[in-house]
């Protein structure tokens, strides 16, 4: 049996407030293992504004700057500038934002920071909706999914925004996708990102049991099926042009991924077919960009 390469350090303390089976809790735990103590984390409004606990407590063992919803990219730019003025080029600045704070309301500040190639790692904890406010649709919500603002009689009509393409077109030095069913892969990408200066972007898929209507014990399984169904392919982009795709050997139809989730339980076979076709087209587009 292969020995795990996951560091034993724990910078997520006991007593956090995440839901049972929360993908974002596993994501944060792994993120902190990768980043280590010499890190400042900016958290714009998201589930993780609440999860660490309320004043005067925090379950995160690194400095955390909670920030306005819109401001991940901007607040991190300011902290980096202050550390540089203080002569501290070593301390890493990381942003932990949700998909709302990245794809939607925070996109402008993130784009501005990425265009300036600000020196930080931006982690988008993507749970495909406004889960902290009770599961409303975001532009990261997949097509046809149920949310409280896209009820089953009128589910989301549009496909998920391609945030990786947007970030790649800013020509930032590094962008990668990752998810918690593949922790070694995620940590490898984090380590790689930490060796680079400039804006680095990690798109991290974190299943959300209450928002996706999944049993809490299926979080990791669904994270794995997201990759195997090619709904969420794992890949890296360097300098906006150099793509590295990770081929999945156990490819499954999207139905395998969708059928476990209550948010898709209303789907008809023809709608599932449309999703399957969209996944195929997205893959073609990605392969084309990768030059394969």
């Amino acid at each position, binding site marked *: 049996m292969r020995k795990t390469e996951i560091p034993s350090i724990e910078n997520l303390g006991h007593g956090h407030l995440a839901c049972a089976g929360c993908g974002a809790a596993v994501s944060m735990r792994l993120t902190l293992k990768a980043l280590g103590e010499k890190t400042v984390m900016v958290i714009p409004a998201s589930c993780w504004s609440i999860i660490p606990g309320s004043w005067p407590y925090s379950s995160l063992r690194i400095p955390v700057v*909670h920030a306005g919803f819109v401001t991940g990219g901007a607040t991190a730019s*300011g902290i980096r500038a202050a550390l540089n003025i203080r002569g501290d080029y070593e301390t890493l600045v990381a942003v932990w934002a949700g998909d709302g704070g990245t794809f939607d309301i925070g996109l*402008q500040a993130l784009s501005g920071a990425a265009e300036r190639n600000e020196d930080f790692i931006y982690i988008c904890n993507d749970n495909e909706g406004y889960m902290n406010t009770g599961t409303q649709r975001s532009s990261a919500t997949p097509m046809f999914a149920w949310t409280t603002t896209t009820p089953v009689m009128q589910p989301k009509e549009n496909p998920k925004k391609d945030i990786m393409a947007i970030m790649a077109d800013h020509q930032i030095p590094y962008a990668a996708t990752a998810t918690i069913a593949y922790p070694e892969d995620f940590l490898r990408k984090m380590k790689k990102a930490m060796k680079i200066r400039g804006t680095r972007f990690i798109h991290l898929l974190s299943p959300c049991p209450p928002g996706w209507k999944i049993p809490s014990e299926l979080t990791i399984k669904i994270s794995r099926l997201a990759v195997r169904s090619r709904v969420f392919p794992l890949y890296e982009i360097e300098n906006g042009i150099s793509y590295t795709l990770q081929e999945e050997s156990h490819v499954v139809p999207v139905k395998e991924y969708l059928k476990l989730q209550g948010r898709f339980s209303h789907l008809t076979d023809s709608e599932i077919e449309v999703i399957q076709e969209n996944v195929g087209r997205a893959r073609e587009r990605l392969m084309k960009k990768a030059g394969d």
Partner: protein
Amino acid sequence: MKKVITGNQAVAYGVILSRVDVISAYPITPQTTIVEELSELIASGRLKTIFLKVESEHSAMAALIGASTGGVRCFTATSSHGLAYMHEMLHWASGARLPIVLVNVNRAIGPPWNIWSDQSDSLSQRDTGWIQLYCENNQEVLDTILQAYRIAESVKLPVMVVLDAYVLSHTSEAVEIPTMEEVDPFLPPYCPEYPIDTQEPMAFSVITTPEYFLEFRYKIQKAMEQVPEVAKKVDDEFRSRFSRGYGAIERYGKKEAEILLMTSGTVTGTSRIVIQKLIEKGVSVAGIKIKRFRPFPSEEIYEEIKGAKKLAVIDRNLSAGVGGIFAQELRASLYSRGERPQVFGFISGLGGRDITPELIEEAVRYTWEHPQPEEEILWLGLKK
């Protein structure tokens, strides 16, 4: 050294002399020459300052919130729609107790589009927990920035320094520019109490339950209550070092007057001349310049208005449905007092229309001739 410079150049000198570490700003008329001047100075290598050229005013303030939490001295400048766009982050800066200094060049807010001076932008932000200081001339602009950092860093609240568009921002005046050697002992480097430190990790702006939130706001109010004393000490020290001082308010004109004319910003400069002329003509009038709007100088004003029968206030702003904001604040601050002179609330000069000596004289004469105002809002120079 004396130099003939614009108000916006005076801002840039104030920033340099304050040894600001991080600037973050987004261009907007009529603030732009401030950021241009600062960009030139940084590019020339004269400043070690980092200038974050962000994509919006919202991000400008957010970046400074990050930098100030990081423990360094911060500056931004904006106007009008830019300040309005920052609104959420203005609350954040004061709530997080960050001593950021912001210069706002007073400009009307559209629509209709208008790039000229009035105070509706800064006064719309009166409840954001920022100290607000209004300036009459370019010298005062430079001096107020130096004082602002001392006050902000002492009470841990942000300060907004306000100057009129064009009348100051783009108009040249002779300004005495102190040397760095003169300013350094007055304004020592910023020593934050709780900067970000990975050796001693802390969480900033953590969610706070109803059990504690009220106390956080109470502390901000207490900090605001310290401002009059702190600002006076800073102003006194400034006066002893540079032979110039301003106070929270300034009374000028007749020693004992029946009418007091209250103004802020550049209207005061014009009022000084008008009042002198009217005194010579036998009108019993004096002027009060209001420099500090937040915290509102109720005590200082009350001390100065004793004996006056009527107060005329010229507001270059409008809170639609109520009237002028300075007049409103004044009425509120007088309500609990024993002596309550009649308040005449004039509105004039919105969207940059000149508040001429003639209009100011009209306001004083109206107040002189009427036992009480015929209307709640008295419009000066309104085309009917």
